[in-house]
């Protein structure tokens, strides 16, 4: 998929983080949750903003905005919940998004050579090339970055 010349057509969820648009493959998406309360407690996993409670389950929230936009997460936000493979298991996990999401389908082309691993390709939407996120790679990159910042601190 990434870096390949071939294109594929599938369903994606378009989401907004800050003022940037991204896409996520719709398979694996669980739900778009309203701006429920973010619970926090002491921990050292800096890439995790806290947890939300959905349908009787505790769902971790990844703080992806600094990595994707270079800015803090917006305050009024929804949570897009998706299954993320952590180790050998899947875990429902949330990322904060600004506003509502929409479904789209289109051709996904290869990512740019200098794009990070967590962009798996580019989706053409409304004449815009939207980066398609690979959540597992994004989580790994965020955790590594947070660990590095922890060491520097």
């Amino acid at each position, binding site marked *: 998929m990434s870096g390949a010349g071939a294109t594929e057509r599938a369903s994606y969820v378009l989401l907004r983080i800050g003022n940037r648009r991204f896409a996520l493959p719709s398979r694996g998406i669980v739900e*778009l949750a309203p701006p429920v309360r973010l*619970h926090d407690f*002491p*921990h*050292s996993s800096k890439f995790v903003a806290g947890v939300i409670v959905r349908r*009787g389950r505790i769902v971790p929230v990844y703080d992806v905005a600094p990595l994707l936009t270079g800015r803090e997460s917006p305050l009024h936000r929804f949570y897009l919940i998706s299954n993320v493979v*952590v180790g050998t*298991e899947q*875990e429902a996990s949330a990322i904060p998004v600004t506003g509502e999401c929409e479904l789209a389908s289109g051709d996904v082309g290869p990512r740019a050579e200098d794009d990070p691993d967590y962009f798996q390709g580019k989706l053409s939407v409304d004449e815009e090339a939207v980066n398609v996120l690979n959540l597992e790679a994004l989580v790994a990159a965020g955790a590594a970055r947070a660990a590095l910042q922890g060491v520097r601190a």
Partner: protein
Amino acid sequence: MKIASHDKAKPRRGKNSEQAILFNAGHRTFAIAAESVQEIRSTDSLGGSAIELDQTDVPKVKHLVERAGRNYFIVNACTHFGLRLTRPTLVLILRQIRAAVLVDGIERMEELNAIHALPKAFRGEERNWYRGLAYIEDNVIPVVSPSGFLTAAEFETLDAAAKAVQFEGVAEG
């Protein structure tokens, strides 16, 4: 994709509910199984019996207290959890490990019907700190693991420091 409305965690009545003590440290609330706490004392009442340890390898422990012939190392909960230091008023003396925990205060007792596993997204020291998470009255509260307060290596360091203090006491006496 579902766009869902607000909801709350469903209270689950488990067969294995347990009594927990909700305590505060560094303006945060934690839960600990009541059965893992042997005794709760005020810091004032321990003042005279706490022995200062001359060691810096385990900064969260500055003192020990002797109870029934055993040394209990006093762990500052704020330092342990990386929180801003506050003034502790109580000490929880634990039952199965030789540790006591300095806390700001006790909130209340609570019956925990379910303890949720700590999500795998949490990969740091908190995996040792907590047994899991409890959802109590719209709050997610970490349930601490008593054995997470001190590692075997830390006990070894502290036991050596305790011996040195006791040796000094004998030499002076």
